[in-house]
């Protein structure tokens, strides 16, 4: 059975859990990272020299990098749907995965740490607001794209929705100011109807 190593509160682990939920793929999961520690243990570093989560083990194949794990599982179990066959659709989906990694995430992380992982009396509200504005600018880019597309890469859910869907849950769940982004809201409402999203993403943030 597929094994996933990493705490289920990690957004990067959640990408893989949500993908497994959509694929109806059984897995076993082992807690590691955050309050569970273990990132620096030699036996974990042997699997993943970065010490981050998740790492997946599929038979004897060991893989890390959350977006690559998501792609791999989708390509293996859902070619043509979650992992589009059409190269332009796939390119579109993978573009938004890369964009979450390199552009969106650096603007979400300071807001998330400030609002979720820092006690109210210790929050640097000016720094949080500066990051929130950048985060909002990125949500606006998604909103513009979703004006012409039901999901991030067309009429159906693909791997392109997974990383940003988790970002959207955090955007809508944190106690922050939110500009109204109607297309993102419409898309997010669709995600919230999905059992796999409800089970693995719509949980208390930690």
């Amino acid at each position, binding site marked *: 059975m597929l094994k996933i190593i990493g705490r289920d509160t990690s957004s990067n682990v959640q990408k893989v859990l949500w993908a497994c939920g959509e694929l109806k793929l059984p897995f076993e999961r082992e807690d590691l990272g955050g309050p569970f520690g273990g990132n620096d243990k030699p036996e974990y570093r042997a699997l993943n020299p970065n010490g981050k989560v998740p790492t997946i083990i599929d038979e004897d194949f060991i*893989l890390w990098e959350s977006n*690559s794990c998501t*792609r791999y599982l989708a390509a293996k179990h859902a070619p043509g749907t979650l992992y589009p066959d059409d190269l332009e659709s796939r390119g579109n989906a993978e573009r938004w995965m890369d964009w979450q990694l390199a552009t969106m995430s650096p603007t979400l992380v300071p807001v998330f740490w400030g609002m979720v992982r820092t006690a109210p009396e210790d929050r640097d509200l000016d720094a949080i607001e500066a990051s929130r504005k950048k985060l909002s600018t990125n949500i606006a880019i998604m909103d513009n794209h979703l004006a012409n597309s039901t999901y991030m890469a067309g009429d159906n859910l693909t791997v392109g929705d997974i990383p940003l869907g988790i970002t959207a849950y955090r955007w809508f769940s944190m106690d922050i100011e939110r500009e109204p982004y109607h297309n993102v809201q419409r898309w997010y409402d669709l995600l919230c109807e999905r059992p796999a999203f409800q089970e693995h993403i719509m949980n208390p943030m930690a």
Partner: protein
Amino acid sequence: MKIVGRKSSSNVQKVLWCCAELDIEYECEDAGREFGVVDTDAFFRMNPNRRVPVLIDGDFILWESNAIVRMLSAKYGMGSFFPENLQARANADRWMDWQLATLGPGFTGMFHGLIRDKPENRNLDAINKSIATTQANLEILDGYLANSAFIAGDELTMGDIPIGIYAYRWYAFEDLERKPLPNLERWYASLQERPAFREFVMVGLG
């Protein structure tokens, strides 16, 4: 097919090197930094991030350099540059993502500090931290390359492209103290034998 972006950009170089390896014909249009263009409304409509490269292929427009490399590799290098075997493909994908989220951000401080900042404006602490981070990241890559000629097996694939560009930049700095990384150096030597790498990547630091 048109590629928009200045040839000195590491992200544009990914696409140019990929096209040369796969014998893809294209026309090139300079944009970014000294060339401007990215500030125009027309560019914003193509890429709201105002960054290069952008690929234009008929009606299809794609940005995010790694997503462009993946798409071109799948279209023109199926089974070779774009591995058909899903585990080999995941290995390639993983190191592309790792460049985007780990190696690239770690390297930015030393590159901007040593290449783009005037000597009197340099933040030496930030530069030294970035050098140490990059050295540590490249040790991870070196460990992986102990068991693999290229990133995803015995031949060059798309997985070698993003990190190959960073290898050039790391070794192109003069007077930099580097710990020896024999596997990385062996792999990098094989890249330097490739005409496409010499033409599009080994073009100086700018």
